[in-house]
């Protein structure tokens, strides 16, 4: 697996500092799980963040804070579930799936999806595109992040194989085409509803909740 399309540094810093909303953070966390280069850059940002904490003048703590923390050291704690990678799905995706395989919903023409998270700041989904199929030409209201987990697709931005991340902003109109071979499975986050440019998909948008 040779990853060619990485996370731009500004986006990685937004993730490291906690600014990215959950749908985008899930895509970035998944790419970092697959890409040692981006993991190194991510951890470097965390080290810089840590160095800044070290350099902080600090604020005075309430007198009893240390005692109340020390008193809780021996408390029994419930184990939080730990999710592991399963097949093509890295741990962050398995966590979003709560450890279960995806429940695909058909979108027509063999395309399937499962929405993983949706909130007022955007949504993130798994997309399944049959080999050789084109996804309807679309633009979107804001940022769109697409990470390939299986297969590959190509569009105006180039070829995207396993681990590659495509970042498209509102100005990009693109028509991804899945490569022949394995079905293309992607993790995709958008911060506004996708707007399809052809007539019929636009009508169907509210139905499919894209």
């Amino acid at each position, binding site marked *: 697996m040779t990853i060619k399309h990485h996370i731009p540094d500004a986006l990685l810093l937004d993730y490291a*500092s906690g600014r990215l909303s959950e749908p985008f953070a899930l895509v970035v966390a998944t790419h970092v799980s697959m890409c040692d280069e981006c*993991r190194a850059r991510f951890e470097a940002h965390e080290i810089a963040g840590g160095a800044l*904490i070290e350099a902080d003048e600090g604020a005075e703590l309430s007198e009893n*804070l240390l005692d109340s923390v020390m008193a*809780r050291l021996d408390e029994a704690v419930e184990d939080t579930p730990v999710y592991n990678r399963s097949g093509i799905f890295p741990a962050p995706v398995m966590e979003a799936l709560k450890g279960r395989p995806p429940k695909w919903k058909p979108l027509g023409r063999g395309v399937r999806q499962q929405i993983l998270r949706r909130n007022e700041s955007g949504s993130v989904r798994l997309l399944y595109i049959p080999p050789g199929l084109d996804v309807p030409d679309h633009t979107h209201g804001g940022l769109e992040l697409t990470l390939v987990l299986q297969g590959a697709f190509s569009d105006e931005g180039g070829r995207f194989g396993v681990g590659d991340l495509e970042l498209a902003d509102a100005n990009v109109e693109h028509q991804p085409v899945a490569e022949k071979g394995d079905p293309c499975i992607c993790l995709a986050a958008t911060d506004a509803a996708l707007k399809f440019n052809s007539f019929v998909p636009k009508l169907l948008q509210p139905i499919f909740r894209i």
Partner: protein
Amino acid sequence: MGDHEVEQGTSGLKNYSEETRLMLAVRDDRDKRAFAKLFAHFGPRLKGVAMRGGLSSGQAEDVVQDVMLTIWRKAHMFDPSRAQVSSWIYQIARNRQVDVLRKENRPLPEALKAPSEDAEDDAGQVLALDQEVTALKAALAKLKPAQREMVEKAYLGELSHTDIEAETGLPLGTIKSRIRLGLEKLRHELDGIRKS
């Protein structure tokens, strides 16, 4: 803490930073005195940065408690050849702030394999990272106040870019390029030190 490195018998340990040694004592010996020292060091700083990140004094102290308890409970995950105590604290603290301010979970990358058991083998890596971080801190200290402020906002500031814009009245593009300039300067400083 004083004779901990003797107990460990690991040659490189005495050269580790104070925080790394304390954290290893927490990880390997469940040493509560070492934990209290880490608390004394990081607690006030954590509160300071949490308040700068937009939390009230009370909320910031809740974050301090949660972060320090997480450090204690997940100490087995600490790997000094890849992370500083402070960078690990940074990650946990930002997660807690995201949770407090946005009621959101921040997904984290898949964990790499457990820390290596081979302390001798890792000692060189730990020291190399310590040195790199010392260089980074020196580079941070050399920034002009305005650049320093931008870098601090990028890492420790409120949890949205729009807030930065409102605070300074600068357009977002300018903010972002200034953050990049600050980072670039950091990187160049580091390169210069590495080459010398």
